[in-house]
């Protein structure tokens, strides 16, 4: 079983921060426009927005480290294995004969770090499409080719 590329934590942290900003802004706005006129506040004006900022920032910085530690993936002869989850653990197994197609996907953030996501599709409906989020771009391409190759050989058989 392999870990993800460590740089994926940078992507997660940055996207967490990008979410933390509007969350703080909304909290600030709600506090100023809705709560303040009603006289609701914690100790001093601005504390609620500050707490929201602290929590979202803390979450954005600390959580990706934990998430990374519990992420494992592996490709074996006949199956793809994925283990993930900090609190809610899951261990997925996809038999390679059931893979319909494989995509690589990159966001601008991932591209700037030369990372890519690998998405594996099956005909299943619920948790059956899985994404391996942080792979070095070259690895993702190589893996995609490898997984596609097995499909072809089986088609000929």
């Amino acid at each position, binding site marked *: 079983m392999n870990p993800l590329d460590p740089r994926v934590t940078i992507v997660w942290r940055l996207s967490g921060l990008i979410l933390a900003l509007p969350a703080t802004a909304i909290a600030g706005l709600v506090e100023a426009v809705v709560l303040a006129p009603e006289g609701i506040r914690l100790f001093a004006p601005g504390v609620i927005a500050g707490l929201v900022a602290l929590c979202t920032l803390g979450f954005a910085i600390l959580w990706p480290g934990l998430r990374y530690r519990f992420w494992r993936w592996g490709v074996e002869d006949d199956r793809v294995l994925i283990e993930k989850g900090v609190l809610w653990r*899951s261990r997925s197994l996809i038999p390679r004969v059931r893979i319909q197609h494989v995509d690589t996907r990159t966001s601008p953030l991932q591209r700037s770090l030369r990372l890519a996501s690998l998405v594996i599709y099956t005909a299943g409906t619920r948790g059956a499409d899985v994404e391996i989020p942080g792979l070095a771009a070259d690895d993702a391409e190589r893996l995609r080719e490898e997984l596609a190759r097995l499909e072809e050989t089986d088609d000929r058989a």
Partner: protein
Amino acid sequence: MTAPESGDGWQRLHPLTPLLRAVQLLYAIIAGVIASQSGVGATVIVIFIFTVAIAAWITVAYLRFRYRITDDSLIIKHGVLFRRRRVIPRSRIQNVDLRAGLVQQLFKVTTARIETAGGQATEATLHVVSRDEGVRLRARLVGLAHDTPRPTAAAALLGDAHAALAEPGRATPAAGSTVHHVSPLQLVIAGATSNRAGFLVGLLFGGDYLFDFMPTDRILARFIPPQYLESGQAVEGLVQTAQSDMQAFLTGLFVLGIIFGVAGWAVSILASVVRYFDFTLRQHGNELQVGYGLFTRREKGFRRSRIQNVQIEEPILRRWLKLASLRVQTAGYGPGLKADERMETLSPIIRAGELNDYLHAVYPEFEWNSVDWRPSHPRARRRLFIRRAFIVIAATAVLAVLTTPDAYILPIALVPAWFLAHAHYRHLGHARAGSYVLVREGLWNRRTYIVPIRKIQALQLRQTPFQRRLGLGTLNIETAGNPIEWHAPRSIDLGTGYGVEMMEQLATEVTGTGLTF
């Protein structure tokens, strides 16, 4: 009446199509109402223009809509402004459903829906064709004539031979025979034993309390002292009574319970009779056909080889009466459809003793009676109890905070919670039987899934933080077509090590079945 046929086998829809679509002319009235604010003249003109435009649109749409069946596909060309031509390969078609509302039944026409795997909604809708044409379409698109999955045919032969050996007296269904017909009396039983009845009783109690839409207080006034009913509200009056006159309270509760019970059951029975009226299941070789419904008549056909899994549903009353209902998942229904429509009913009600015969129609080589169920891990009982205890304790805490002195009686509920947890545990289980894996769960409504290993798409072992502490996990078995997690095959609370082992074992067997779907 047959659809007019033009050259090259292109066919039109039934000539009544524009007439049945004429309901859309109501839009002209709506437009007229909107326009009525600017005077009578404008209203008349708007209604006239809209009526002409809509009528023209309906007519042109009808004239442009053509379809034809070739050797290997269904081709449809249609469109008023944008012309579209769609080719649906026959091998991709999962099922063909015919659905006729009351008006359509009157004119002997029906709406045909063609479903393929994948996609959000129905792949193609033929609205409307004559009933005979619908049956012909279904026969040609999913029928045996062009179906060539040899392994299943061989399996069917083997299965029938096997069945004949096992029970020489039993008649195996011949091609095209009716496997099953459900009488109205059986449907009454189905409605009476459905959990929907209990749900409705609860709804009536709640509805009467919140909205007071029933004259229940007048009936109740005969049984409990009138001063408690000053609010004119039955359930609240009953609550008032409980604090002073226990005997009157119990009488009132009994009466109200009977009233709501009878009403809830009646509605549930009516719903079941209307929905499944004249339920018939037929078998044509590899094709299964079901037809049911009083006002909306549904007729569906699908290939046996396309069945992803089978679900046996046993609400608590049915379990006591040794009854069950049977449904199959055919992957044809996308998430765009209502939850009710996503699985195909194979029988609204059957005796548990008939299950084996019945399942033979779907999985000829499967033997229901020889299934050896294995329980989940014993620690599951602890988790099932803790889950219920948590709710009791939380409710106690809330009541205590609200300074209700009776709050301290509530923990007595922990005793039934313990018994319920143990009862629940007995209904968790999994089993292996030949090339099938079975899982079941549910106390109030036990669901048993039968999944052929060749249909498994992916496997997943999940652990909530509570399960992780107890070394338990839930094994999800993914097939095509079960979009909702708690309506899909899964085995709850296996020991982690055992679950992982089972997952690995199943994966190896899935690989062994190769590229089949």
